[in-house]
């Protein structure tokens, strides 16, 4: 028994709580089961290693997988350093109550809540048109980076601020430079927050559709470079289920692949970050 739960009056409130929890679990289980039942049969090595045919009704998803991974790669490579820099600036060099800090934080919180389609339109206008990147993996990845930045920055900042003051003082008292204590003490201390941010942000990015339709586009051929258009998995699923009659089977299979991919992202990030926490960041 949970000792924190009130013993009395548990009747109705307890019933509501448990039903809500059961409902959520049931919906999730139903969703997974649906995707598994409809998708598992299509999954094969061929499906993963060949190009789509007939608008995706037949064939596999290899170019789409490659585009998805490239878009994610661009997104993380662009977002991580900016997020780290901004979070360090906010957490370490901006007093919590200063006008500048408050303004930046407010702006980030607003940005974090902006619907992804708005980021799509912005990405299209800025990266695709203004910077002339066109419909490309690069503009898609950069747009996603913009989209997940607020979240990454805010979680990282909170993680850095949560470092105990005594660690900072102890480090300074040993004559450690600020950079050294940042790399070996403060950043590893913020690793769980970084993990949470990466999972939330990475999850949002890999499942993103609206922002990519306008930026990395629909082209389902194998991308030759980052400047080629590439179709992400989620866009593929959307297209198959909405625009391609008879595409449902492969839509399910792609959805299953997407879920497995999400799972892999979760597990590897957790692994990397826990290693980093143990050993410190070796730069």
């Amino acid at each position: 028994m949970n000792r924190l739960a009130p013993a009395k009056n548990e009747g109705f409130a307890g019933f509501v709580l448990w039903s809500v929890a059961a409902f959520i679990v049931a919906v999730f289980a139903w969703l997974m089961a649906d995707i598994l039942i409809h998708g598992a049969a299509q999954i094969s090595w061929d499906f993963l290693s060949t190009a789509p045919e007939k608008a995706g009704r037949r064939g596999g998803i290899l170019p789409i997988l490659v585009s998805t991974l490239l878009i994610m790669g661009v997104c993380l490579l662009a977002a991580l350093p900016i997020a780290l820099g901004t979070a360090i600036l906010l957490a370490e060099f901006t007093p919590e109550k200063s006008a500048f800090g408050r303004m930046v934080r407010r702006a980030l919180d607003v940005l974090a809540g902006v619907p992804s389609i708005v980021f799509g339109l912005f990405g299209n206008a800025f990266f695709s048109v203004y910077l002339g990147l066109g419909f490309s993996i690069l503009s898609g990845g950069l747009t996603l980076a913009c989209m997940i930045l607020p979240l990454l920055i805010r979680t990282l900042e909170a993680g850095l601020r949560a470092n105990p003051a005594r660690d900072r003082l102890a480090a300074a008292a040993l004559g450690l430079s600020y950079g050294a204590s940042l790399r070996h003490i403060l950043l590893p201390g913020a690793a769980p927050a970084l993990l949470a941010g990466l999972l939330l942000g990475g999850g949002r990015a890999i499942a993103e559709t609206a922002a990519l339709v306008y930026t990395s586009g629909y082209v389902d051929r194998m991308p030759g470079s980052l400047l080629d258009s590439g179709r992400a998995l989620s866009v593929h699923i959307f297209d198959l289920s909405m625009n391609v009659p008879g595409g449902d089977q492969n839509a399910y299979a792609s959805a299953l692949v997407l879920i497995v991919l999400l799972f892999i992202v979760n597990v590897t990030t957790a692994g990397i970050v826990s290693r980093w926490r143990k050993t410190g960041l070796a730069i």
Partner: protein
Amino acid sequence: MSTVPPLTDFVSTKIAPAKKQPVGLIETKNLSLFYGLKQVLQSVCLPIEAGKITAIVGPSGCGKTSLISTLNRLTDLIPDCRISGRVLFEGSDIHAPEVDVIQLRRRIGMIFQNPAPFPFSIKKNICFPLREHGIKDRKEQTERLETVLRDVGLWDEVKDRLTQNALTLSGGQQQRLCIARALALKPQVLLMDEPCAALDPLSSAVVEDLIAALKEHYTIVIVTHNLAQAKRISDATAFFWSQNGMGRLIEQGGTKQVFEAPQNALTAAYISGVRG
């Protein structure tokens, strides 16, 4: 207060004539300290003899921690903390622009009231600051690791678990690890802020013996609420008292003299346990 003796009376004649500025000598001159607009130390003139243990005693909130934090410029880290007056280390002003604060803090180590080991292995706790101070040689690192752990009497307790997280040690062991970590950098001065306050009586006795043994090689400044401890281990004692919320140095001198023949009524009252 007029009972503060002039500097010259205090600087021991044993050291002064031979070498003008003995290694590890610290002096504060008219040191005042403010947090924002609030003044917490007023015109402190305190000489700290080299190679001796100086105890700093006084009631809670009279600025003892603030005072020793100025000696290694740790107050630099506190936003809106401002000081006036001077702190001389071996004769030169530690706030002078050319002073390398990293080197200063390497030479003046500090131990905190609550043990503050870093959340990684015992070994890394000691070796990582060494590496950062340019001691990259593995052999030298392991030598120093063993030496300092032996110095603080921790070697036998931890030699088989050097790669374990330092936070798994007991409080007393953590505090000794912190002392070892400071010693590994071969400082000249150790500042200790109530190093036994968070420890049980047994660990406290171990750490106290350790401090007494360290005296031979280091200048030690120790803040303590434990008057008996101050009396047991220190050579000199400085008594602080807060007046109108401002900490002032009331009396200082040889420990024996301060405890047995205090010059100031406040000191006498505090020491006999009437106040504070």
